């Protein structure tokens, strides 16, 4: 670490080492991992920024999205440090590889808050998340329960996320933890390259020819691939079995309203994003916030997501204000909305 | 044998210059070509003959100078403009598309029935043209890449006859041709002259020049080095103008052969 002793750039560095109290005009980095899910740009970022603005009107948030590339995330972190940020909130592309970023930042006395995904190898200063593995487990479990209730016969298809995405790996693990002991046969599973819905559609189409009516349900790791799976059934002209999702995208909500998709999962992004802004602000002021629990040797706060189905969609997504009925209940979805009482 | 009096010129150049990087390829060239006249341009290798041709056919713009065509001062910015004016050119490097076959090359840019190509008409016409030049091409449906050097040159010459040009420029048209094909091309040049076209022919072959040209313009190192009337000049004089000396490799060789030196 001796080589990096003099880091920090021209102006920002001198004040950053001083630390104490004044966080005015400070910068904080908010580094998100990918564009495969819309949530980072549409939810996490604006919510975090809004909360930050409220806590510290003169502070700036440096937002970056690494587009699923760990090396790019490293570059983004480095450039944030060159700009003299006082804290980094990072949702790592690769939990293992992010250790470098944590190391580099900590060597410059910049605190790092792991967001959404942990950095197990090198403890960050704080960890705030819901648990991806748990998410996988919850969507799958909800589907399994539903199938059991309906006395469905047959097996399950599993559409995982990108084979080169660490988060997808966690979700996959979670899904298996629910399906493997469920008694339903896992007909086949597929890692969708780049989370592409088209790929998921192609694969599911093939499985429909292969397994015909044995397919009782499909566990898809996010809403995009879930949508691809549904389109495959529609295109094959067969009945759509229950299909899961994850991320609670608007399009998924509409499909749930229309009865095409069985579930998705809504993460309390607002709560998490605001909590992380809180924690980051404390760090920027030079405080050391304490965690609710400790995970991976890191003071942590974990939040629990909610599975959304037709039964609870109104209350979880619409009444809570996460989504607006006016956006979702357009055209063909108006009827479904009316039935579910969404206004 | 042929009219040498200066007819009013179809094409005349004044003060044409062209530089490539550090090399002055053409300096202050003057030239007049009349309808119904064959003008030969001769000169050593690299004298600038092909550069001049390229300027006339719109391939390169000149750096300076004016071109007058049918008494109007014109610009020839592109080869398409030259075509439109009625200037057809056979380039020294032939400029054929090797991936296209003979018919496709012949009619390139002037296809019969643009929206539904008339292959039969084009093939028939191709055979006519090629026969006329006594080309020895076994099939016109092979890509030009598969033709011999002389066969390609014949294709390039045949192509220049297709439109209805007023001036035809031939840059070393017989370089790769066999004796029979050369004779046909010379016949052709004479026919073109009879039809009132202006013909510019570049050649290193003094016999051919003497045979068909009316006037000979000599270029030397990118400059005019005299315009001669073919009837009034001997081969030796032309060669002297080309090489810039009366004592040159050609005359030495001839002298040696006459003296019958051993080999």
């Amino acid at each position, binding site marked *: 670490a001796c080589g990096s002793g003099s880091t920090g750039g021209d102006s920002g560095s001198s004040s950053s080492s001083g630390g104490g109290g004044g966080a005015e005009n400070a910068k904080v980095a908010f580094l998100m991992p990918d*564009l*495969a899910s*819309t949530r980072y740009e549409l939810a996490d970022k604006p919510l975090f920024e809004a909360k930050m603005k409220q806590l510290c009107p003169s502070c700036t948030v440096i937002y970056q999205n690494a587009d699923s590339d760990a090396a790019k995330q490293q570059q983004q972190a480095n450039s944030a440090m060159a700009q003299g940020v006082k804290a980094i909130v990072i949702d790592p592309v690769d939990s293992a590889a992010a250790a470098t970023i944590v190391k580099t930042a900590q060597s410059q006395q910049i605190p790092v808050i792991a967001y959404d995904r942990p950095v197990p190898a090198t403890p960050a200063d704080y960890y705030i998340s819901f648990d991806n593995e748990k998410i996988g487990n919850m969507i799958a479990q909800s589907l399994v329960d539903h199938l059991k209730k309906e006395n469905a016969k047959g097996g399950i298809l599993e559409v995982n996320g990108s084979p080169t995405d660490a988060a997808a790996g966690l979700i996959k693990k979670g899904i298996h933890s629910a399906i493997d002991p469920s008694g339903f046969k896992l007909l086949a599973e597929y890692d969708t390259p*780049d989370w592409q819905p088209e790929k998921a559609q192609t694969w599911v189409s*093939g499985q429909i*020819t292969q397994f015909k009516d044995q397919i009782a349900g499909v566990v898809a790791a996010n809403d995009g691939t879930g949508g691809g799976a549904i389109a495959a059934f*529609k295109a094959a002209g067969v009945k759509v079995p229950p299909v899961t999702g994850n991320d609670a995208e608007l399009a998924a909500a509409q499909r749930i309203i229309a009865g095409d998709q069985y579930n998705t999962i809504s993460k309390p992004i607002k709560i998490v994003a605001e909590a992380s802004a809180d924690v980051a602000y404390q760090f920027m002021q030079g405080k050391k916030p304490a965690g609710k629990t400790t995970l991976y040797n890191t003071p942590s706060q974990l939040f629990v997501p909610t599975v959304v189905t037709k039964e609870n969609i109104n209350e979880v997504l619409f009444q809570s204000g996460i989504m607006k009925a006016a956006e979702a209940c357009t055209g063909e979805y108006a009827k479904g909305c009316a039935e579910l009482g969404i206004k | 044998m042929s009219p040498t009096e200066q007819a009013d010129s179809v094409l005349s150049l004044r003060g044409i210059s062209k530089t490539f990087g550090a090399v002055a390829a053409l300096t202050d060239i003057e030239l007049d070509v009349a309808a119904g006249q064959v003008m030969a341009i001769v000169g050593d290798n690299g004298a600038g003959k092909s550069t001049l041709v390229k300027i006339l056919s719109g391939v390169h713009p000149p750096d300076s100078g004016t071109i007058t065509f049918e008494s109007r001062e014109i610009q020839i910015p592109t080869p398409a403009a030259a075509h439109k004016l009625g200037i057809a050119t056979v380039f020294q490097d032939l*400029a*054929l598309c090797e991936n296209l076959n003979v018919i496709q090359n012949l009619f390139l840019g002037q296809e019969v029935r643009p929206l539904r190509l008339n292959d*039969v008409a084009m093939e028939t016409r191709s055979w006519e043209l090629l026969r006329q030049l006594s080309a020895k091409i076994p099939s016109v449906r092979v890509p030009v890449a598969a033709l011999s050097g002389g066969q390609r040159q014949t294709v390039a010459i045949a192509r220049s006859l297709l439109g209805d040009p007023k001036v035809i420029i031939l840059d070393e048209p017989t370089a790769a041709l066999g004796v029979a094909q050369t004779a046909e091309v010379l016949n052709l040049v004479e026919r073109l002259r009879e039809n009132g076209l202006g013909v510019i022919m570049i050649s290193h072959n003094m016999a051919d020049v003497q045979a068909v040209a009316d006037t000979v313009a000599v270029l030397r190192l990118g400059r005019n080095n005299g315009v001669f009337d073919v009837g009034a000049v001997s081969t030796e004089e032309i060669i002297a103008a080309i090489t810039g000396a009366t004592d040159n490799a050609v005359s030495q060789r001839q002298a040696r052969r006459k003296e019958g030196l051993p080999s």
Partner: protein
Amino acid sequence: MNSTLTTDRQDERLSGREGLRGAIADVLERARGGDLGVIPVVVGLIVIWTVLQILNPIFLSSANLVNLTLESAAVGIIALGIVCVLLVGQIDLSVGSVSGLSGAVLAVLFVSNGLPVWLAILAAVIMGAVIGWVYAQLFNRFGVPSFVITMAGLLAFLGLQLYVLGSKGSINLPFDSGLVNFAQLDFVPPWLSYCFAVIAAIWLFASGYLHAQERRRAGLSARNLSTLLIRSVALLAVLAFVVYYLGQTRGVGWMFMFFVGLVLIMHYMLSRTKWGRAVYAVGGNVEAARRAGINVKAVYTSVFVLCSTFAAVGGILAAARLAAANQSSGAGDVNLNAIAAAVIGGTSLFGGRGTAFGALLGIIVIQSISSGLTLLNLDSSIRFMVTGIVLLLAVVVDSIARKSRTSHGRA
């Protein structure tokens, strides 16, 4: 019949053959010489079909082949545009982004803004054309390599796609809209499919016959009646079999017919119009084309516009097939697959060589591999490896068939 030689058969070095025998001998001769057109690709295709069928007996089932045809259409149409740019020796790396953007524009206009579907489609297609026109301007004016222009486009239009989708992220197209139906559920009725097959065969025969007549009248060698008949009957048999086999399940999709129709139109444009000649000429030797008076810039413009337009059309169909437009539409391997389809179909990356049918065959190769291996349910690591190997296999077969070309002096 062989006694008087036609104009184009008089050279005594030609191994003189006419009639049916001659035609067969010709094909064999050309096979020996490596000048086989699309035959090597077909051979490659047969090899990988056999392999995949052995690995999973469902592969050649009617249902799966129907899927295959439908999945080929969108990227196939994009590949058709790529063939055109490759023919002039240029490249377009942005077809993926443009297709994604086009899907997004369609969805936003149609679903979010409630425009009629035809207007939304038109807008997306026009946008594609405009993008191609901009590329062409940059290329013609500044001489920037098309690789870099379109790479800039790849990034910029990906950004625009995200921007257009904006806060929605992913937009569903209604399942009951005509567009989605077209891409998913509309199939040509069996009787009409057979009609198409018959019409194609008759058309092949008639046009061949008239052409032969014309050639004979002009004193040129021509295919004789039996060759023409055999050709047409063979075509009829193949098409009828395809229609029959696909008809076992759902039949021939309209979207696939649309793709085949575009292939036929492009084939005509490239082989039978002045524009097509100009495209090949520019690709073969741009300076020669320019000297022949061809407006080279116009050719480049037409080709870039065509390519982006096809990309936009492909994007619309992809969105229709998925019944959604989202941020990852057009990302991933759309670019690579479209270019690879063109190259596998025999289009040269250096320009001047390739056909529209090549795009059709190429995309079928690519989609067969992808569909065949998707069916195998392998680990993704293994799947990637096997995909690479099978792709290589298909192309090695093709290349071996072509190989003798160079040794026979045709590079």
